[in-house]
């Protein structure tokens, strides 16, 4: 029994908008050109709700909610940006910068990185929390790709793309908390993976310079993601 989606009206940032009942606040906001920052969200992948960048205020709800996983309701009043929300987002972004080693100036994704762009858009000019400077490995064993854990934000996009779209589930996250890390198979080198199809989807969905193509120099790594919603649609119709 498939639920029929209904049209609902709601207010986002004072603007009256409409959407389908199975749409999230984020989707409806996007359709109406209202900007909500995101990081782990990517159209074409399942919703994750991990990065907390898209938190918004909903009138009557006791807590801030992630716009990506909260469905709209009739009469909902959403505030996507207030001083409080903005400050929380800045702090979360700052925490992400402290966690690994994001050296933008020496990164192949410089200029095309979602983390870097978010810092620019939200006006993060410095990070108030102390940097952790963990020693992280770089896996360059694959013929075509590199995994640089220094740049990883653990958004889980690669894991989801590999599992949900490619169907290989070569990548997953190991450990937990601050020590979690993205792995290939049984924490093996990427180059020796028997399950990896080398399709490159993980590389292109990665928001930062954690997964990149070989042979790219600083600022040369641009990602292509247009294929994703298309692929999703085609697979649903299969």
């Amino acid at each position, binding site marked *: 029994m498939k639920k029929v989606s209904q049209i609902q009206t709601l207010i986002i940032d004072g603007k009256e908008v409409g959407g389908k009942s199975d749409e999230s606040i984020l989707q409806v906001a996007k359709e109406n050109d209202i900007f909500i920052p995101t990081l782990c969200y990517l159209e074409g992948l399942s919703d994750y709700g991990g990065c907390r960048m898209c938190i918004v205020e909903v009138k009557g709800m006791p807590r801030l909610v992630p716009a990506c996983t909260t469905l709209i309701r009739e009469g909902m009043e959403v505030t996507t940006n207030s001083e409080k929300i903005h400050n929380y987002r800045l702090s979360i972004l700052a925490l992400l910068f402290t966690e690994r080693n994001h050296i933008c*100036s020496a990164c192949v994704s410089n200029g095309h990185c979602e983390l870097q762009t978010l810092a*620019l858009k939200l006006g993060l*000019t410095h990070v108030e929390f102390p940097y952790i400077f963990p020693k992280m490995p770089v896996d360059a064993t694959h013929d075509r790709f590199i995994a640089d854990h220094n740049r990883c934000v653990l958004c889980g996009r690669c894991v989801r793309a590999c599992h949900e779209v490619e169907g290989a589930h070569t990548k997953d996250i190991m450990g937990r908390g601050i020590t979690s890390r993205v792995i290939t198979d049984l924490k093996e080198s990427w180059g020796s993976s028997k399950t990896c199809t080398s399709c490159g989807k993980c590389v292109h969905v990665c928001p930062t310079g954690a997964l990149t193509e070989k042979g790219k120099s600083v600022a040369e790594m641009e990602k292509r993601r247009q294929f994703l919603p298309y692929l999703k649609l085609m697979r649903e119709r299969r």
Partner: protein
Amino acid sequence: MEKVKIATSWLDGCSGCHMSLLDIDERILTLLESADIVYGPLVDFKDYPQGVDVAIVEGAVSSDEDEEKITKIRKLTKILVSFGDCAITANIPGMRNYFPTKELYERAYFENADLNQKRPSIRIPHLLSHARPIHEVVTVDVFLPGCPPPADVIFYSLSELINGRLPDLKGKTRFGR
């Protein structure tokens, strides 16, 4: 009207930020109408003077010498500007932070040295265990990120500071290039 006293300095950095400062080209003359550069690598003064209004410092705090310098600058300056990514994030100098300093010395003076494999005999500044952003050591008033920060943004920031305002740098410059 008395001119605003500007000092510049660099700690553990590549001087690229200072180069970018020079990239404001002839606009520097406009700035100098109402400001003096009283200290820094671009001018020839030996000691850091009293009563500096604005200090622009590039580079991370990496050695005991850097630590002394920045503490002194902070003490004698009204407004301290963290200038560029190394000053704000430790950036490239921070890439050595995952290695013990002993290994760094080994690498620099022995493994990578073709001739004369020894620690320098004259005193060199002692490396701290980590290269740190300036604001983890002293209080910073203005952050001007970029590697290097674009000349236009430097000009804008200096103009604001000279006119007694704190520049609003949000959305104007980012980490990296």
